[in-house]
C-alpha cells in the first residue's frame, strides 16, 4: 500500500537538524569562551591618551626585574577621582613587566564589603581612603593620595584666597620606592635629633610638626628613630642618616663634638636651620665648607602672601645643577620656604665640594638679623641678588670611595617640611631628593614627577544658552525637519 506523502521533513531529518543545531551552538559557545579565556591570559593594552603615558624609567624597569616574591598591590580608590585612571594604568604597566605583581582595585564607594575586608586585612583606619597599598614579605607600604600629586597656587578667589591646583603626578617615584621597600628586607636606620626645640617627627596634627615627613621617610624603607647626643651617647653606629630639624636652642659643645665625629666617620647629615637661631653650629658648618648667614632672606616679588616665599632650583656656577634638585629644575617646579637664612659655600675649603641648591630670584634680599632682645629694630639690607638658601657638601679624600665620603645637606629653613608646607609646590620632592642623595640612592633621584595638564571650561550664561540651543534644539529639530521633508516627498 503506498504511503501518503508528508508535507515536511522526515523525523530522521528533523532529528539530525536539531543535533546539528545543538552541536553548532555548543561549538560556537566553546569557541567564544576559549577566545575570551586566551585573550584574558595573553592581552595587549595600548594607551592613546597623552595623560596616561606610562612609559617607565629604566630604573623602575630594573627594580621590577629584581622582584622575585609575590607583591600584592591594592588600589583603594574612588574610581571617579581623576588620579584613579593614571594610577591604574601606571600600575598595570608595572604588572606587565613584573608578573609577580598582583593588582587589585577596590572602590570603597561601590564595594563597601570588599573595602572593609581590605581595611581589616591591612589594619587600615576606617576613615582612611584613596591610597595605594603594597604588601609583600609581611610588610605593607601605603602611598596616600596626598603624596601622589604636587599642588601649586594658580590664582586667587574673588575673596582673596589662593587657589591651589595639582601640577605634577608623583606616581612612578612613589610606587617604585614602595616596591623597593616591600621587596627589600634590609631596612636602613635613620635618626632625628630629639630635643633642643627640633620639630617632632611623631606630630602629624599641628602645623609645625614633622609627622608627615616622618611617614614619607618610612615609605622610603627607613626605620626612623630619635637620637639624643651627649658625652656618653654618640650618634648610633647603625645611623645611615641623621636629621637635625630646626633646633631652636643652641646645642652644647658635647653634642656638636658628636656631630663632628659622625661627619668625620663618613656620616650623612641633613641640617635644617630655624630662622631664630644658628644653634651654635656655624663653626661646625664652616669646617664643612658651609657658611650659615646671620640674616633672613626675602624675595619681595615672589611672596605667597602668608609669609612664605617662592624659591627655585639653582645652577651652581662652579658645579652646575646638583642631583638633589635636577628633577625639580627639569620640570621647572618651584619650592616654598618660610623666611630662611642664607646658606652659601665658603670659598677655599678644598677638598669639600660645595654646591648651591636653591636660591631666590635675582631680586632677592638678605636682611641682617636684629641683635637678640632688640625691639623695633630696623631691618637693614645686607645683600641683594640671587641668594642661596641651601647647599650640598661632599668631602671626598683622594682615592676614597664616594660611598664612604661624608655628605651634608644644609637648608636655611626648617618650616618648608612641616605638616603644612610639605605638600606645597615641590617641597615633598625636595625632601625626597635630599634624603635619597644623602642615602646614596642616586638611582631614585632620576625618577621625576610628571606634569598634570589642567583644563578649565569657561562658559558664560549666554554661551551656555547658545550651546544648549544648538545641542538640544537646532540639531535634533534640523534632523527631524529633513526627515519630514523626505517623508512628505515620498508620500506625494
Amino acid at each position, binding site marked *: 500500500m503506498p504511503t501518503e506523502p508528508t508535507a515536511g521533513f522526515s523525523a530522521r531529518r528533523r532529528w539530525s537538524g536539531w543535533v546539528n543545531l545543538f552541536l553548532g551552538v555548543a561549538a560556537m559557545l566553546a569557541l567564544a569562551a576559549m577566545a575570551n579565556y586566551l585573550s584574558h591570559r595573553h592581552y595587549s593594552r595600548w594607551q592613546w591618551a597623552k595623560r596616561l603615558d606610562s612609559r617607565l624609567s629604566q630604573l623602575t624597569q630594573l627594580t621590577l626585574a629584581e622582584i622575585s616574591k609575590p607583591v600584592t598591590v591594592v588600589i583603594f580608590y574612588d574610581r571617579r577621582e581623576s588620579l584613579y585612571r593614571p594610577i591604574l594604568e601606571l600600575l598595570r604597566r608595572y604588572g606587565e613587566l613584573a608578573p609577580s605583581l598582583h593588582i587589585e582595585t577596590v572602590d570603597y564607594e561601590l564595594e563597601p564589603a570588599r573595602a572593609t575586608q581590605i581595611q581589616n586585612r591591612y589594619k587600615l583606619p576606617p576613615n582612611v581612603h584613596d591610597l595605594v597599598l603594597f604588601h609583600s614579605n609581611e610588610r605593607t607600604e601605603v602611598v596616600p593620595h596626598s603624596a601622589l600629586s604636587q599642588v601649586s597656587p594658580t590664582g586667587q578667589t574673588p575673596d582673596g584666597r589662593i587657589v591651589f591646583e595639582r601640577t605634577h603626578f608623583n606616581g612612578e617615584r612613589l610606587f617604585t620606592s614602595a616596591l623597593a621597600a616591600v621587596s627589600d628586607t634590609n631596612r636602613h636606620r635613620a635618626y632625628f635629633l630629639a630635643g633642643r626645640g627640633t620639630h617632632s617627627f611623631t606630630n602629624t596634627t599641628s602645623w609645625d610638626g614633622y609627622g608627615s615627613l616622618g611617614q614619607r621617610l618610612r615609605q622610603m624603607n627607613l626605620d626612623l628613630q630619635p637620637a639624643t647626643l651627649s658625652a656618653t651617647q654618640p650618634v648610633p653606629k647603625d645611623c645611615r642618616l641623621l636629621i637635625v630639624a630646626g633646633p631652636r636652642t643652641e646645642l652644647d659643645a658635647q653634642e656638636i663634638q658628636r656631630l663632628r665625629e659622625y661627619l668625620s666617620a663618613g656620616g650623612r647629615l641633613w641640617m635644617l636651620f630655624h630662622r631664630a637661631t644658628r644653634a651654635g653650629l656655624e663653626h661646625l658648618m664652616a669646617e664643612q665648607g658651609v657658611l650659615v648667614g646671620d640674616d633672613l632672606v626675602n624675595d619681595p616679588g615672589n611672596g605667597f602672601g602668608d609669609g612664605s616665599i617662592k624659591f627655585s632650583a639653582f645652577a651652581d656656577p662652579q658645579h652646575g645643577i646638583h642631583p638633589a634638585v635636577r628633577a625639580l629644575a627639569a620640570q621647572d617646579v618651584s619650592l616654598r620656604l618660610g623666611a630662611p637664612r642664607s646658606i652659601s659655600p665658603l670659598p677655599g675649603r678644598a677638598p669639600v665640594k660645595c654646591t648651591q641648591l636653591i636660591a631666590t630670584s635675582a631680586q632677592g634680599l638678605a636682611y641682617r638679623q636684629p641683635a637678640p632682645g632688640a625691639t623695633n629694630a630696623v631691618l637693614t639690607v645686607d645683600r641683594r641678588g640671587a641668594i642661596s638658601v641651601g647647599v650640598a657638601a661632599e668631602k671626598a679624600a683622594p682615592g676614597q670611595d664616594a660611598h664612604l665620603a661624608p655628605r651634608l645637606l644644609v637648608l636655611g629653613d626648617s618650616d618648608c617640611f612641616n605638616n603644612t608646607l610639605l605638600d606645597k609646590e615641590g617641597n615633598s620632592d625636595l625632601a625626597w631628593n635630599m634624603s635619597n642623595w644623602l642615602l646614596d640612592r642616586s638611582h631614585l633621584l632620576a625618577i621625576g614627577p610628571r606634569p598634570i595638564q589642567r583644563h578649565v571650561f569657561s562658559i558664560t550664561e549666554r554661551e551656555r544658552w547658545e550651546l544648549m540651543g544648538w*545641542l538640544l534644539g537646532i540639531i535634533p529639530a534640523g534632523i527631524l525637519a529633513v526627515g519630514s521633508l523626505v517623508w512628505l516627498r515620498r508620500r506625494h
Partner: protein
Amino acid sequence: MQAYLTLVRRELAGHFLSLRGYVIMAGVQFLLGASLCITLEALNQKPFDMPITEKMPNTGFFWLILLLVAPVITMRTFAHERAIGTFETLLTTPISDWAVVLAKFTGALAFFLLTWLPALAYPFILTRYVSGMGAVDLGPLASLIIGITMLGSFMMAVGCFASALTKSQIIAAMTSFAICTGVFLLGFISVIRPPWIGSRSELFSHLSMLEHMGDFASGVVDTRHVVFYASLTALFLFFTQKTISLRRWR
C-alpha cells in the same frame, strides 16, 4: 558580494526613506546633547585634569542611548519582514542565509554609527570654551569611537537575533533590551555580591561593560575588550543565522 551590498543599501534606505530613522537620529542627538550639557554644567569654571571623553560614559544618558537605541534600530530587521510577508521571498532568492544576516547586521550597525556621527564635532566645538591645551585629546576620542563601535556591534547582533525570533517588533525590541541590559548588569554582580577574590571576581570584571567603556573612554584599547565584543557579536550572528535556517526544516 553584489547581493550583500544591495541588501545593505536596502536596509539603510529603510531607515533613511522613512520618518522613523530621522526620529531615532534626532532622539540620539538630543540625548547626546543633554549628556554634554550636563557634563559642561558640572565642569564649568572648575579645573579638571581628564579628557572630556572620559566624563561622557559617566552620564546616564550615554548608557540610555546605547541600551535603548539598539533595540529600536534592530527590531524591524527580520520581524518586520516576517510581519509583512517578504521574509519568505527573501529566503527563496539565491542568497545564502549568512549574506542576509550579515547584510541586515551591517545596515543596522552603519545606521547606529551614523546616528552618533554629529557627536564627532562636539570636542572641537568645546575647544572654543576651554583654556589649557589638550582638553580634546584625539587618542581617547579614537578609542571611544572604537569602544562605541564594538559595543554597538554586540548590541546590533543581539537585536538581529531577537528580531529573527519573532514576528512582533515590540517583542523583538523587548527581548533585545532584556539581553543587553542583562549583560550590562552582570558587571555589577561583583559589587552587590559579597567580596570575591580570584577568578570569579576577574570573570565579572571581564564582563563589566562599564569597565570596558571606562578604558575606551580614557584612551586605552585593550585586546580583551575587543575580543569580548567581537566574540559575542559573532556568537549572536551565528544564533541569528541558525534561527533563520531553522525555519527551513523545522
